[in-house]
């Protein structure tokens, strides 16, 4: 048996080496100066033609590495920052920005076209470690059919949600495991202040808010307005989701309805901004810079909305007709300074957990 083992050991060893060699010769990150690697979360999506245009114009081939959900992707990027998996990271949002910056995830680079970024999205102006790429709002969505059937006016503001006529109607996500869940809590903290938000949540809890762990459950299983929810005979007509969810309900329907079955309570929104940056220790900084430049071009910014269901940050970039038609943009969404989020996030999530889940 011993000699057999040795033979097999050698064979397996050779096999693994060959396999991994095959794998890495074409895919190696950083080593190849003609390939630029983008690390992102799994909501990343872009049209093929747009990538092709970048590859043709810049001469770099793009490789994309999706690294789990938003929080996971950031954490993994931080863990591997000494020897990063790629050159550019896309997808750190304002709720996690400080974690990335405090850990020196990015190096300084100001991409071409930065001057065209709408001023309200600019951050880190002295160091230029991150560049805003897109923005989106976390808002309460409602099921239009439910409210017309019950002859009830849909809620429009945070204040409305604690009114008795909306008792037991809202489902939201666990703020400690879900980013829309966290965004909604931050929205209430921005609205009611450091002292008032806990009181608001006590009332929301008394008014029968239901909490589930993730967006998929909340939206596809509990929310009566979504395609999945209808099939699951869901019974909550209010859900914390995105401002872009109503257009998605139209675009991803066959046949397409004339109006969206859902809409947004425009006074319940919290604005998320997503950033990209050149990773510290990137293997291909030239390619990385070219890619960041490209992400601010009109081509890329115009393509983004219908792929990732977010809004562009570049002046003059086109917001698709579907967005304006099926989902009006939030009125004056709540925002919060990333530094303030950083200081309070963990404490707030902790007190929210003991307040709402216990």
């Amino acid at each position, binding site marked *: 048996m*011993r000699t057999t083992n040795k033979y097999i050991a050698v064979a397996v060893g050779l096999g693994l080496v060959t396999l991994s060699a095959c794998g890495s010769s074409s895919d190696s990150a950083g080593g190849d100066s003609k390939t630029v690697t983008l690390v992102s979360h799994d909501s990343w999506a872009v049209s093929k033609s747009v990538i092709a245009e970048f590859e043709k114009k810049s001469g770099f081939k793009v490789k994309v590495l999706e690294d789990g959900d938003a929080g996971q992707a950031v954490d*993994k990027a931080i863990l591997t920052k000494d020897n990063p998996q790629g050159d550019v990271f896309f997808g750190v949002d304002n709720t996690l920005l400080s974690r990335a910056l405090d850990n020196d995830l990015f190096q300084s680079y100001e991409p071409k076209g930065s001057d065209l970024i709408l001023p309200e999205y600019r951050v880190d102006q002295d160091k230029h470690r991150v560049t805003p790429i897109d923005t989106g709002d976390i808002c309460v969505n409602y099921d239009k059919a439910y409210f017309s059937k019950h002859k009830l006016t849909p809620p429009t503001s945070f204040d409305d949600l604690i009114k008795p006529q909306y008792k037991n109607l809202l489902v939201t996500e666990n703020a400690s495991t879900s980013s829309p869940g966290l965004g909604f809590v931050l929205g209430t903290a921005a609205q009611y202040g450091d002292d008032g938000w806990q009181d608001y949540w006590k009332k929301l809890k008394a008014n029968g808010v239901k909490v589930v762990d993730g967006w998929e459950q909340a939206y596809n299983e509990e929310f009566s307005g979504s395609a999945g929810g209808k099939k699951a005979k869901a019974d909550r007509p209010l859900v914390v989701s995105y401002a872009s969810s109503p257009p998605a309900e139209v675009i991803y329907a066959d046949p397409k309805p004339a109006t969206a079955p859902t809409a947004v309570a425009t006074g319940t929104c919290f604005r998320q901004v997503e950033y990209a940056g050149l990773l510290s220790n990137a293997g291909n900084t030239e390619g990385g810079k070219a890619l960041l430049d490209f992400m601010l071009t009109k081509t890329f910014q115009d393509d983004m909305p*219908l792929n990732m269901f977010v809004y562009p940050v570049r002046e003059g970039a086109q917001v698709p007709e579907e967005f304006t038609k099926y989902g009006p943009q939030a009125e004056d969404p709540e925002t919060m300074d990333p530094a303030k989020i950083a200081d309070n996030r963990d404490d707030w999530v902790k007190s929210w957990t003991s307040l709402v889940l216990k």
Partner: protein
Amino acid sequence: MAVPVAFFAVFFAYPVAAILARGLHVDGAWQLARIWDVVAQSDIRHVLWFTTWQALASTALTLLVALPGAYVFARFDFPGKHVLRAIVTVPFVLPTVVVGTAFLALVGRGGLLDELWGVRLDTTVWAILLAHVFFNYAVVVRTVGGLWGQLDPRQEEAARMLGASPLKAWRQVTLPALAPAVAAAALMVFLFTFTSFGVVQILGGPGFSTLEVEIYRQTSEIFDLSTAAVLTIIQFVAVGAILALHAWTVRRRESALRLVDASVTARRPRGAGQWGLLAGVLASVVVLLLLPLAVLVQRSFDAPDFGYYRALMSSDGGVFLVAPIEAIGNSLQYAVVATVIAVVIGGLAAAALTRRDAGRFVRGFDALLMLPLGVSAVTVGFGFLIALDEPPLDLRASWILVPLAQALVGVPFVVRTMLPVLRAVDARLREAAAVLGASPWRVWREVDLPMVRRALLIAAGFAFAVSLGEFGATVFIARPDNPTLPVAVAKLLGRAGELNYGQAMALSTILMVVCAVALLVLERLRTDRTGEF
């Protein structure tokens, strides 16, 4: 022995140790006091308590429901048996996010049970327990039933002839032979439910949290690596203790079994009692396993002209760079490679563990091989990232990482399935062959292989199926141009819109069918070769 040890050292022990060190070795000093800080928190103690008792309850319930099933599948012959046995294995390999969706349709609000009797179990612990039965039914049926079918019924008959009552004959002949398999199955179920993640997260809601969920939360959401490291160590110790206990009980019960062809032992049920048992088992299978799956299928056809399936063919919409349908090919390729790795590594380990002169060290390795099942995917995944990042082992960007991670979970299945059978091979046969001049390789080929071929195929099937549905580790490494089926499903479910939801259901249905076909082929393979036994 050298190969499995090296494999586990490089692809398991080293990455896990690296991530633990990252959490506990801060500023050049070990922060061991953190362990007490963490354990002292009442939240954490609550998590520990819930993890343990729900795992015990789930295991007991699974054995209760599945042992009669194992008996029926092993000893009875009925039309559609092979198809059914393949189908009951499907839940085991489906990604939990899909199963959660399907299961809610059964026990959730507006679900079937709700409409019939007003029974709703969502966000209760019952939903978790039932889903655990759903997932692990096949573990018991295949592990226990596989051996049961091969036990020579004549031994029991002989006991009867000598005057033993049916109960006594069963207790003294069949039960002792079966006990290691039952223990192995119970152990696996306990491990899976102790480390349960998706089921608890989806069906239990935020009120319930297992150790595994908490490790994920601390690592991925809060980025508190030191708390995560402490929890990982606690899980490690708990799982290790159970495994050690298990290894000890198995060794005490080892005996050379007389194995026969399973097709000889199965016969048509006789008498009201046996028919009743068969009907009861079939009913439980239909309600607990087939109904949730049927709901998935029904939802996938909920668009005119197979709309959701047609949508899978196009890459429009930009969710993927490739048409979602390509995920099937990717998944199959990964699973085949993972199965080969798992069978080679697991087979070698099992062979080494069976040797008479296996020392204490080797026997201890038996339990160690099972550890990957008890360590969270997020820990292993993060470990891979920071440990396997330098040449010659910079595998982070290589596709081989996916099958490697999947094989890590497959190996324990191979070992667990092979070991009882290999141990049951009479060592004197090998010795006789050796005395007659056969080389070790030839002894293995001519003595062991024919006797363990069936177990080997079961093992390979399990490894393949596990790889096909594996999600936790795959999602760390899968790429948009190479999504696997479960990753594609999760991505589609993560977006609003009817077409995305429908495509997710359609892909889940395809995954289900692919698994069922793969397992059916395996069943066929088994029956073709049984003549060689």
